[in-house]
């Protein structure tokens, strides 16, 4: 090859290399950004800061975390390099790929209840257990067993963000106007409903157009201390979801409250938005929902937020019923050279002082006990008191396979009269078995 030919080959190679680099850089789908604190010079601590890589979903970083980052930089000398991934399946796949290729962060923000089936590695080999850390003394492990721990019973995640609770939200003015007391048994609940109905108001508002909202009564009913034990058996085919008596209580409730005429006339056409208005305006007496609805009511009807309270749905009565807890997301420390510094940050984050900073800037009920500064509404404060008194259990337990992906439309079918509680439970069990079989689970051959 002559010199001219060699030059041509070199040029060609350069073009190919440059193109490949451009394509590769364009393929890097994640958005990496340093926290605000990284751009500011450390005014208080001149010493070199510890840098920790944090990986999490984009929308999980809001005002609360911003405030904490500022404080952490000043007090701890810790700097977080936050890498945000998109929400949903794309983000999940991206994080899984990162873990599969051992491109690991120091801290992972992920949903609670990490298990091996989530494809991030075996938890005990990949993440640092939090069971012996100081912050856990302010955390009610018993309430979260089966929801925030892993298959081996250890807690690898530390709570990140607020939790939510499934309760009966009620309009205090309606109750006061009719001189009603918060019901403690199901009989009292029906009696209260009857009195509200006689006054011309809607006793229990159902927002069946948004089918997911109809899941709340069974969610509340299934929140029981024995839930994780039950699911341990379900996961190995020793118990069936169709025999889930606690959940059935909630499904039967939907049937009964409709049959007794204690709901809004067009409950299948009325939406979550309609429910908020009816409850805030006092057109409806009660709404079975999670406390996340209070954020919407606060925005839309700020002058009526104080009229709304919360109580536990008395399915069984006699103190057996619980507030249904939806777990907060979690922070996981990845084993590696920075795990001590990461643990230091997590201990700082979960301390009462830092939690006060976080919840002063962001809504949600803290899962850490003793947090005094929050943006909670009266209904959320009432729910939190019930939780703090120990009358709370997780709504979900670690399930090896999904069973609830169609639960909203099944409960809507129940409300529409097309299904019985037994048929709903048979359907969710069939879904679970189908998912187990598709994964070749030997227990479901």
């Amino acid at each position: 090859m002559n010199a001219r030919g060699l030059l041509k080959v070199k040029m060609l190679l350069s073009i190919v290399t440059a193109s490949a680099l451009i394509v590769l850089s364009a393929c890097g789908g994640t958005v990496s950004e340093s926290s605000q604190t990284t751009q500011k010079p450390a005014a208080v601590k001149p010493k070199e800061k510890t840098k920790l890589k944090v990986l999490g979903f984009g929308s999980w970083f809001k005002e609360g975390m911003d405030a904490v980052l500022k404080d952490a930089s000043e007090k701890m000398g810790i700097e977080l390099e936050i890498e945000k991934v998109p929400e949903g399946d794309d983000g999940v796949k991206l994080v899984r790929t990162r873990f599969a290729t051992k491109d690991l962060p120091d801290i992972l923000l992920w949903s609670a209840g990490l298990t091996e089936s989530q494809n991030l590695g075996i938890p005990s080999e990949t993440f640092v257990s939090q069971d012996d850390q100081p912050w856990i003394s302010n955390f009610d492990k018993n309430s979260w067993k089966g929801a925030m721990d892993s298959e081996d019973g250890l807690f690898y995640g530390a709570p990140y963000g607020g939790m939510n609770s499934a309760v009966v939200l009620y309009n205090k003015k309606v109750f006061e106007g009719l001189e009603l007391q918060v019901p403690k048994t199901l009989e009292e609940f029906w009696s209260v409903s009857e009195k509200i109905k006689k006054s011309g108001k809607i006793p229990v508002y159902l927002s069946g157009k948004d089918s997911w909202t109809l899941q709340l009564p069974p969610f509340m009913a299934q929140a029981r201390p024995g839930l994780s034990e039950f699911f341990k058996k379900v996961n190995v085919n020793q118990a069936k979801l169709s025999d889930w008596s606690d959940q059935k209580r909630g499904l039967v409730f939907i049937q009964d409250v409709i049959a007794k005429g204690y709901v809004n006339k067009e409950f299948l056409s009325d939406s979550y938005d309609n429910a908020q208005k009816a409850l805030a305006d006092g057109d409806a007496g009660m709404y079975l929902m999670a406390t996340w609805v209070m954020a919407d009511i606060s925005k839309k009807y700020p002058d009526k937020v104080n009229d709304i309270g919360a109580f536990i749905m008395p399915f069984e009565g006699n103190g057996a019923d619980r507030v249904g807890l939806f777990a907060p997301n979690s922070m996981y420390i990845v084993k590696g050279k920075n795990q001590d510094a990461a643990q230091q940050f997590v201990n700082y984050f979960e301390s009462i002082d830092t939690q006060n900073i976080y919840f002063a800037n962001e809504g949600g009920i803290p899962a850490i006990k003793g947090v005094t500064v929050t943006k909670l509404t009266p209904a959320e404060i009432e729910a939190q008191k019930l939780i703090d008194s120990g009358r709370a259990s997780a709504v979900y337990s670690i399930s090896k396979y999904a069973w609830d992906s169609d639960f909203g439309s099944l409960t809507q079918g129940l409300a529409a009269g097309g299904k019985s509680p037994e048929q709903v439970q048979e359907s969710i069990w069939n879904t679970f078995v189908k998912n187990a079989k598709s994964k070749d689970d030997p227990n479901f051959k």
Partner: protein
Amino acid sequence: MLRKQYYRYTMFLPGFAVFCLFFVLPSFGSFFYGFTNLDSGFTFTRFVGFENFINLMREPDNFIAFKNTLIFAFLTTFFKVGLGLLLAIFVNLKLKTTLYLRSMLFFPVILSTIAVSLAFTAMLHPERGILNEFLRWVHMDFLAQSWLTNREIVMYSVSMVEIWKYTGLSVILFLAALQSIPKEVTESAQLDGATGWKSLRHITFPLLLPVFNTSIVLHLIGGLKVFDLIIALTGGGPGNASMVINTLIYKSFTQGRNGEATAASFILFLLVLFIVLMVNRLLPKHETER
């Protein structure tokens, strides 16, 4: 000679390759995956034989989806073609408002299905919807219904929206065919005494037959493949009362059972193929010779 033939094939090959790549391969791929336990990560560990197909047929909820799909496809096709023909004959008359009427009839076709669905969700609300308000206003309360939440009538309500939206398409097809009928034919028929109904039955309709057949087949295919309207109007509800095959496929995909979803897609493909072939065979083929 050989060279000429070879040349012919080289012209044909690029198009055939594209056809194979984007149609034949995905079609066979979908057929193949229907026999596996393909999951949400698009990986599969084994062949499951006909398990996915058997599961789909065994579940009573899925039977509703098949039944609803057939009801929807045939009911909407009947009305879209029937009404389309009548309206096309009407707007083919020389009226002052003809142009306006033609535009109005076609207008729903170009509207977004989501926008139409949202509008109808509001209009068909049992308490606040304009339809029931009107019925109550004219003292016909007994006709006021929970149009989209009553399990018994929801499929008919959804079909009504589809008929409203797509009848205009049939109108345009028939109108084009009507205007292509030579005047000499109708005039000589009139001279022979064929007026009104007789002319329509023996002259106009036979000449419209090819368009009539095409319209039926197109609407049947569209009806069997309905998805967006159902999702936006009812989400397949209440419960699963308005579920169709495509919402069933969507459900399987979102639940990570991609093998089952592709099996259902394949069943839908076979169903469309079978019905269209049958209808094509049953429909009268002979048009009057021009």
